[in-house]
């Protein structure tokens, strides 16, 4: 009933049945496209390494410095290096996914059901990403401290035990909801404005959406790095 009020499609997916599992096809397609874009830029940029970088290599090096800066800001000079790949991958994947969803006119490609959009507007993607963050901060904590990692649950006093346990659940919850909500809200605002005034008016909101989605990628990467830093220090 609500679908007819505004011609905005929320919660309709292109379902694929793969080996007994139901998969959201449009998310899978765009996810692989994002991976292909990142991979091809990285491979092309590092194909012919030169002492004095120019062109694509210059760009790739700048991106690398930026993402390693995110990790360095949170984890510190001493131990940020092993976490640069993880934090950098999170940032690049979310950033490219968000911008791909906002910049490419997906409406032109008709699917039988649902529509192509940023993969991060599906809660499954964001939950998967934030669970990866949880896994990696547990891994980092156990690797550095061993079983002493559990000491953080009763710090500063054992009274905090329930709150500290709860925190392990709220961290991925808030991470995933923040990203999902922001991206979906962007798309809904843009499509509602397009419905009301199809010309020019949605443009500033689209630009704001581009900015907000890049900030969300930065926030996700920064928070993951901060959670990892909390458990390895």
């Amino acid at each position, binding site marked *: 009933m609500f679908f007819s009020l505004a011609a905005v499609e929320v919660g309709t997916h292109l379902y694929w049945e793969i080996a007994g599992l139901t998969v959201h096809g449009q998310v899978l397609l765009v996810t692989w496209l994002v991976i292909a874009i990142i991979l091809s830029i990285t491979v092309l940029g590092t194909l012919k390494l030169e002492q004095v970088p120019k062109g694509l290599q210059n760009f790739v090096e700048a991106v690398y410095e930026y993402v390693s800066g995110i990790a360095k800001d949170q984890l510190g000079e001493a131990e940020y290096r092993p976490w640069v790949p993880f934090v950098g991958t999170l940032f690049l994947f979310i950033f490219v996914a968000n911008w791909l969803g906002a910049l490419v006119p997906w409406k032109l490609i008709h699917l039988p059901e649902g529509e192509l959009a940023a993969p991060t507007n599906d809660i499954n993607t964001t939950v998967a990403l934030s669970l990866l963050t949880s896994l990696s901060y547990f891994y980092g904590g156990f690797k550095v401290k061993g079983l002493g990692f559990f000491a953080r649950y009763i710090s500063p006093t054992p009274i905090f035990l329930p709150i500290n346990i709860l925190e392990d659940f709220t961290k991925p919850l*808030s991470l995933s909801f923040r990203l999902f909500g922001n991206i979906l809200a962007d798309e809904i605002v843009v499509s509602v404005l397009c419905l009301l005034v199809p010309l020019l008016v949605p443009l500033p909101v689209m630009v704001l959406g581009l900015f907000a989605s890049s900030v969300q990628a930065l926030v996700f990467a920064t928070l993951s790095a901060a959670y990892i830093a909390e458990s390895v220090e």
Partner: protein
Amino acid sequence: MNPIISGASVIAAGLAIGLAAIGPGIGQGTAAAQAVEGLARQPEAEGKIRGTLLLSLAFMESLTIYGLVVALCLLFANPFAG
């Protein structure tokens, strides 16, 4: 769908996002004001202040986003629609 349920859902969705916007709105205003004050005192710390401000604004915004998620659930995936 039962008209009472749909009416209540729409009102609840509006309330969820509206009420959830109050607190973060006030918080973001305070944070931005403090950032501007810090900028006026120390213009050379602009980069650091901007980064921290953006990050904390995103944190506060996420509270409104939780309200939005609840509103979207009520509108598009209502568990009581039956």
